[in-house]
């Protein structure tokens, strides 16, 4: 087990190297450089700027420098004028993205699991129909569809929640400041609804499979309370297949908040990424991409390891 964990963790290194390389190549093949804008710069200005940011070296030299800097977790400074450390920008913005990502992840898993378990327990009953209906509709409700609908109903029409904006500051959660919950509810549901439907579907199928097993009948036959049968005997085992999809879902939500952030002016990492691509801020693109890649890689690793704990039959 420990050996497997170490091997998998080390396996992340070549993966990250590959992603760093691919991003480097892609970034430098975008037409135009960071200093091409509406107002053309003079030759001297351009040369000076390129020298300042190390863009006057040949590409291989830039690549080596870039990799060397990465080893010390240094992704350089932004090339778009403010000269800030990319590291600082990521540090500053990630709180917002994580808040949104984690909130919608909790929403998706709690409601998805509940819905799945409830509909499996009264299969073909009214609860099941409601559950399956929500899960089916949810599959067609990505954030870009749901966010406008929710905004119309709950913000414009009913006024229960604020129209999503950054005015009162997003991301205070890390410091225990929950006063902005009115702004968090709608984006959380918008982002988390599709994964919720997905989790509900898997949980239902997995629960139905487990509930048909002989040992559940045995548990019932020996007179265990229904509560114990459902939670301790069924749900615990039914959760294992659900666990595998939770990792990718979490990563997807962290990255997926990009969409919501951009359109609802939430100052998170995703917002920053879209801006950096449009103005070709090389270092910022690299930094954000790698940051997300690291999160995804570790989430996948974490889930794989968790899988081994949850299911003792799995041996590495």
């Amino acid at each position, binding site marked *: 087990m420990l050996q497997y964990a170490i091997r998998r963790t080390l396996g992340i290194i070549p*993966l990250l190297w*590959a*992603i760093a390389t*691919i*991003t480097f190549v*892609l*970034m430098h*093949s*975008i*037409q*135009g450089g960071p200093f091409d804008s509406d107002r053309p710069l003079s030759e001297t200005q351009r040369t000076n700027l390129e020298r300042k940011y190390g863009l006057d070296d040949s590409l291989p030299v830039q690549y080596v420098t870039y990799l060397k800097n990465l080893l010390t977790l240094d992704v350089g400074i932004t090339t778009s004028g403010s000269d800030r450390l990319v590291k600082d920008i990521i540090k500053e913005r990630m709180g917002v993205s994580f808040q949104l990502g984690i909130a919608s992840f909790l929403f998706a898993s709690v409601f998805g699991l509940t819905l799945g378990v409830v509909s499996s327990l009264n299969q073909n009953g009214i609860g099941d129909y409601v559950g399956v209906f929500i899960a*089916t*509709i949810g*599959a*067609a*409700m*990505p954030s*870009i*569809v749901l*966010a*406008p*609908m929710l*905004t*119309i109903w709950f913000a*414009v029409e009913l006024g229960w929640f604020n129209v999503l904006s950054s005015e009162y500051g997003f991301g205070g959660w890390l410091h225990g400041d929950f006063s902005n919950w009115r702004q968090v509810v709608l984006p959380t549901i918008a982002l988390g609804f599709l994964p919720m439907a997905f989790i509900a579907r898997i949980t239902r199928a997995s629960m139905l499979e487990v509930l048909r097993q002989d040992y559940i009948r045995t548990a019932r036959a020996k007179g265990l309370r229904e509560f114990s049968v459902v939670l301790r005997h069924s749900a615990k085992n039914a959760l294992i297949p659900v666990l595998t999809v939770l990792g990718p879902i979490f*990563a*997807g939500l962290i*990255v*997926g908040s*990009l*969409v919501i952030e*951009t*359109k609802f002016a939430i100052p998170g990492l995703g917002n920053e*990424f*879209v801006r950096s*691509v449009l103005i*070709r801020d090389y270092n910022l*693109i690299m930094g*954000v*991409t790698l940051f*997300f*890649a690291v999160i*995804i*890689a570790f989430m*996948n690793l974490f889930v794989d390891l968790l899988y081994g704990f949850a299911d003792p039959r799995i041996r590495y």
Partner: protein
Amino acid sequence: MSSPSQAAVQPFDFAQEVMHTKQRGLWNQAWHRLLHNKLAVISGFLLLVIITVCVLGEYVPAIQRHDPSIQDYGHIEEGPSAQFWLGTDSLGRDLWARMLQATLFSLKIGIGTQLVILLIGVTVGMGAALAGRLSDTVLMWFTDLAFAFPDLLAIILLRQVLLNRDWPIIGSGDPQIPGMSNILLVTILAIAFVGWTTIARLVRGQMLSIKELDYITAARSMGASPGRVVRSHMLPNTLSSVIVAITFGIPLAIFAEATLGFIGLGVPPPDASLGSLIGQGLDTIQTHRIEIIWPTLMVASLMLCFTFLGDGMRDAIDPRTRR
């Protein structure tokens, strides 16, 4: 329908049963099972209607009714009327015409992307399964990599890379294919280059398991060339699951494009895609609510229909997975 008593009286005619199944081949049977799935049939029919109306709208002015990019400042942010069936937007453009244009664009994205993915996925999957262990390792490492790369970020980066580029054959303008624009091609390629791994893994897995089956050994021992074994025995048997995966892939591609359009990285104005219409609608959500309803409904319906159709096809092709 024969009643149970009749069935008991009549002896089971094995020969006829076999001939009967033979007459109705695998695809025929699957087709019949699909027709029995109401949800799938309705979805398929709805999709057919949507596609027909959108394609006709492109070529028949009587169906498109208005030019989607003509701005009429006498009719700004109007609700649905006899003249403007779905209303007009904040620049006085007819939303019906814009919806037709946008939906067609999204459908082209969905189907075009899956065609490219089919090409890449089947080639890579087959290569990995058949061309020896080294290529298998390399190709699978590639799919792992594509799996680990944050999807949306990769699509956005690739889109920027492919944009405004001088291509070897097509040049920098619109390619010489009817109905294909430069931005359409760029978006299709960007989404496809990120999304091909599912099919590749699927084809590889199927091929590896089929390779070991007896009928392949039989075909081989009867002297069939490797090319023939792959072409007429292995490929057709992976086809069914590939078709299902493709059907499920279409709504994903449509969703990916809608996301790009939503955050302002879609088609450049005045053209519209469903995502950019939603994005625009969001800007006027306080004053003109109806504008955002149409494209969101359309995205949701397209995704639902393709998902139901995919579900139906999966159940039809492989009855074992039926619930």
